[in-house]
C-alpha cells in the first residue's frame, strides 16, 4: 500500500467477563481515509471502538497506531497520541457550557490548527451559544459540540460512533458534510453507522460486522446491496 | 409434564448440615465439661460471631453499610440493666424484650436513615448511634456519663457460684447464636433471600420484577437491630458493667466487627464466622499489642478490600465452588424421560 497506514487492528479479541464480544477483528485505516463500520445492533461495533480507545483491555500488539503498539493503554494516553472519539449519544458534559466542553477537549494540549476560533469558524452557531449549558442545545447542535470537543485535541484520527443517532435526516446530512470538510482538512475518520446508505455515501472503505466478526469488507463502491444485506443480517 | 425437577440440597450440603448440628451438640455439651476460662472465651466467640453475622446480613446481603450498629449493642445492654436492676425483672425474661424494644425503635430509625443513600446512609447510621450514646449520658438513673454496674443480687439469679453463672451465660449465648444463624439461614433461603441477591446484583431490574426494595431492606434492618440488641444485652450481662462509652463504642462493636467480616468474606454466610474465629485467635495470641493490634487489623482489612474484596471465604467459594449450605436451587433432569 502506498498510503501511510494510520491504524491497524490485528486479530482483536475482546471479552466482557466470560462473554466474548469480538472474535479476532482486523481493520486498517490509512491516512486521509474515511472508513465506515456498519452492522446490526449488538454486532460489536461499539465494543470495537471502545477497545481502540482503551476502554477495554487489549494486548499491545492488537492495536497499532502511527507505528506504535497502543493496545491496552490508558484512554487519556491514547488521546495524547492523536486518536479521539465522538462518543455514541454525544455524551456532552451537561453541567459545562458549550465553550467549556470544547476546552476540555484541549486538555491534552496537542499542537495543531484546531483552536476555539477555528471550531467557531466551522460551526458559527456554537459561537452564539458559547456560554449556554450544553444540555440546552438541540440534538444537531450538541453533535457539533461533540465533534468540536474531539477536534480540540488536534487528532490525526477521529472515531465517530453513531453520529446520526436521534437526529433528523436533514441534520444528519449536514453533520456528514462537516465530517467531509474536516477530513479534507487532513484528519482521517472511522465512522460507525447503522444508517447504511449514509455510511456508503461517505466512506472510502467499508467493514460490515456480524456477531463479533468482520463479515464483509471492501471499497465502498465495490460492495453490492445484496452482499451487504447478507453480511448485515447473516442470512 | 416437565422433564426437569428442582432440588435445593446436595450431598455436600447434607454432610455439612449434619456436621453443623453435631457441632452445635458438642458445643452445648461444653456446659458440662469446660473450665471457667474456656466458657468465658467461648461465650466471647459466640457473641462476636453473632455480631459479625448480623452486620454481614445487613451490609453484605442488604447493602446497608452501617457503622452505627453499636447503637443497638448499647441499647440492649442498657435496657437489660434497666429491666433487671431497676424493674427487678428476671434476667432471662428481659432478653426477648430487648429484641422487641430494639425492633420498635429501629422502625422509625430506618424510616429516617433510608432517606440517605449509599455512603450517606453509613454516616447517618453513625449519627444515630451518637444520639443514643449522648442520650444515655443524660439518663441519670442509669448512671449518666459514668455508667452503672449490675447489682450482685441480679447476677446471682443466673447461678449462685461464678461457674454456674458462666455456664448459664454460655448456654444463653450459644442458644442466641444458633437462633440468629438459623434466622439468617431461613431468611436467605426464603423469598427475601432471593430478593436480596437480586437487589445486590441489579437494583433496577429487581424493582422491574416486582421486588419492593425498601420494604425488604426494612425487614433486614429491623431483624438485625433486634438481634444485635439481644447480643448486646448478653455482652454486658457477662461484663456486669456498662457505660455510654463502652456500650456505644464504635471501635468495639462496629470497627472490629467490620474487619472480621471483610477478612472472612463479606456477603457469604460462612465468611463472618471464619473472620470472627480468626480475630479471637489473633487476639488470644497477640493480646499485648494494644493499639498496634487495631492498626494491623485495619491494614489487613484494607488489603483484603484491594486484593480480594470477597474475603477469604469468597475466594475459597469461587475458586473451588464450595457451597456448604443448601441456599441455592439446582435444576436436574428427571430420570423418567
Amino acid at each position, binding site marked *: 500500500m502506498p498510503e501511510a497506514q494510520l491504524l491497524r487492528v490485528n486479530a482483536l479479541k475482546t471479552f466482557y467477563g466470560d462473554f466474548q464480544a469480538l472474535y479476532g477483528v482486523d481493520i486498517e485505516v490509512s491516512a486521509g481515509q474515511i472508513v465506515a463500520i456498519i452492522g446490526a445492533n449488538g454486532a460489536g461495533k461499539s465494543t470495537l471502538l471502545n477497545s481502540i480507545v482503551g476502554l477495554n483491555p487489549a494486548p499491545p500488539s492488537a492495536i497499532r497506531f502511527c507505528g506504535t503498539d497502543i493496545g491496552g493503554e490508558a484512554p487519556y494516553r491514547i488521546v495524547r497520541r492523536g486518536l479521539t472519539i465522538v462518543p455514541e*449519544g454525544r455524551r456532552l458534559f451537561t453541567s459545562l457550557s458549550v465553550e467549556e466542553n470544547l476546552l476540555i477537549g484541549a486538555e491534552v494540549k496537542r499542537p495543531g490548527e484546531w483552536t476555539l476560533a477555528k471550531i467557531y469558524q466551522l460551526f458559527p452557531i456554537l459561537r452564539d451559544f458559547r456560554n449556554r449549558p450544553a444540555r*440546552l442545545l438541540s440534538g444537531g447542535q450538541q453533535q457539533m459540540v461533540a465533534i468540536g470537543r474531539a477536534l480540540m485535541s488536534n487528532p490525526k484520527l477521529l472515531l465517530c460512533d453513531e453520529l446520526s443517532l436521534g437526529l*433528523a435526516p436533514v441534520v444528519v446530512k449536514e453533520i456528514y458534510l462537516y465530517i467531509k470538510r474536516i477530513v479534507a482538512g487532513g484528519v482521517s475518520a472511522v465512522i460507525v453507522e447503522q444508517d447504511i*446508505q449514509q455510511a456508503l455515501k461517505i466512506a472510502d472503505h467499508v467493514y460490515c460486522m456480524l456477531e463479533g466478526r468482520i463479515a464483509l469488507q471492501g471499497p465502498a463502491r465495490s460492495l453490492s446491496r445484496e452482499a451487504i444485506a447478507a453480511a448485515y443480517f447473516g442470512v | 409434564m416437565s422433564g426437569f425437577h428442582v432440588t435445593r440440597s446436595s450431598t455436600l450440603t447434607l454432610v455439612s448440615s449434619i456436621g453443623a448440628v453435631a457441632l452445635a451438640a458438642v458445643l452445648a455439651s461444653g456446659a458440662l465439661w469446660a473450665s471457667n476460662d474456656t466458657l468465658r472465651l467461648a461465650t466471647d466467640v459466640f457473641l462476636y460471631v453473632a455480631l459479625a453475622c448480623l452486620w454481614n446480613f445487613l451490609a453484605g446481603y442488604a447493602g446497608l453499610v452501617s457503622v452505627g450498629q453499636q447503637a443497638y449493642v448499647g441499647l440492649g445492654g442498657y435496657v437489660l440493666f434497666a429491666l433487671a436492676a431497676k424493674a427487678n425483672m428476671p434476667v432471662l425474661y428481659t432478653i426477648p424484650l430487648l429484641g422487641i424494644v430494639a425492633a420498635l425503635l429501629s422502625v422509625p430509625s430506618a424510616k429516617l436513615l433510608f432517606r440517605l443513600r449509599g455512603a450517606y446512609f453509613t454516616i447517618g447510621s453513625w449519627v444515630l448511634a451518637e444520639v443514643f450514646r449522648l442520650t444515655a449520658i443524660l439518663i441519670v438513673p442509669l448512671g449518666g456519663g459514668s455508667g452503672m454496674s449490675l447489682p450482685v443480687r441480679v447476677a446471682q439469679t443466673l447461678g449462685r457460684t461464678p461457674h454456674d453463672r458462666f455456664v448459664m451465660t454460655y448456654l444463653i449465648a450459644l442458644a442466641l447464636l444458633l437462633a440468629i444463624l438459623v434466622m439468617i439461614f431461613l431468611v436467605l433461603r426464603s423469598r427475601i433471600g*432471593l430478593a436480596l441477591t437480586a437487589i445486590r446484583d441489579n437494583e433496577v431490574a429487581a424493582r422491574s420484577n*416486582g421486588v*419492593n426494595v425498601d420494604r425488604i431492606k426494612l425487614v433486614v434492618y429491623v431483624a438485625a437491630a433486634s438481634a444485635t440488641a439481644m447480643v448486646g444485652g448478653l455482652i454486658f450481662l457477662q461484663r456486669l458493667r456498662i457505660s455510654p462509652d463502652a456500650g456505644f463504642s464504635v471501635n468495639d462493636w462496629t470497627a472490629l466487627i467490620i474487619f472480621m467480616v471483610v477478612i472472612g468474606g463479606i456477603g457469604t454466610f460462612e465468611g463472618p464466622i471464619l473472620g470472627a474465629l480468626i480475630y479471637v485467635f489473633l487476639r488470644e495470641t497477640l493480646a499485648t499489642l494494644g493499639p498496634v493490634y487495631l492498626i494491623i487489623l485495619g491494614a489487613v482489612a484494607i488489603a483484603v478490600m484491594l486484593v480480594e474484596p470477597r474475603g477469604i471465604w469468597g475466594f475459597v467459594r469461587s475458586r473451588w465452588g464450595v457451597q456448604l449450605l443448601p441456599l441455592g436451587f439446582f*435444576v436436574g433432569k428427571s430420570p423418567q424421560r
Partner: protein
Amino acid sequence: MTIALSLRNVSKSFGAIRIADGIDLDISENEAVGILGPNGAGKTTILGLVTGTLSLDAGAVEFRGRDITALRPEQRCRLGIARAYQVPQPFGDMTVFENLMVAACFGAGKSIAESQAGCLEILEDCGLADLANVHAGRLTLLNRKRLELARALATKPKILLLDEIAGGLTQHECDELVALIRRVHGTGVTIVWIEHVLHALMSVVGRALVLYQGKFIADGAPADVIREPKVAEIYMGIDTDA
C-alpha cells in the same frame, strides 16, 4: 373492547431532546402493537415511562382504567406490566432458574413452592432449560436476551413490553421466538414490541406505531404504515431510493 394501556398527553424530554411531546395513545386488551422509529427516537424511553423506571414531565399513564402515574416500578410490575430490556439486565450472580424465581415470587406474588413448576415450564418454552443452573452473568448475549424474555413471562404479565429482542438471532431462532410470542399473545397477554427486525415484528403485531421527534407520526396496520412515504423517508434509510 376494553383499554389495557393509555398514555394521556404524556411529555418527556432530556435536556433539549423531546422524547414525548404530548402523546396520546390507547392500546386495547390483548392487542399486539409494534413501535418503530429511528435510533434515538425514544422508543425505549416510552417503555420506561410505562414501567415507571422513568418519570413523566407531564401527563398520565393508565393501566386498565387505573391511573398508575404515581406508582413505583415494582408496584406496576405486580399489577401485570412486564418488560424485557433491550440491554439485558440479568441478576448476574444468580442462576438462570433463580432469576426466574425472583420474577415469579415478587412479580407474580407467589411462594417459592408455588413458583418452581411454572418457572421450569417457562425455561423450557424459552429454550433455556439446559442452562437452568448456569450463572446468568456467564450467558452469551443471545441467551441473556432469552432470559430477559423468560423472566418477564415469569411475572405472569397482563401486558408484555419487548425491546429489541430479535436482533442477532438466526432465522431459525427468530422463527422460534415469533412462535413463542404468538403463544403468549394467544393466552390473552397484550404485547407492545419495539423491534428493528421487521419481518419478525410483522408476523406478530396487528398494529404499528412510528415514533419520531416526540410524536407518533403513523398508526395503523403494519403493512400500510411502512408504505407511508414519511415513514420510509425517516426510517427505512436503505430503501428510500429503491
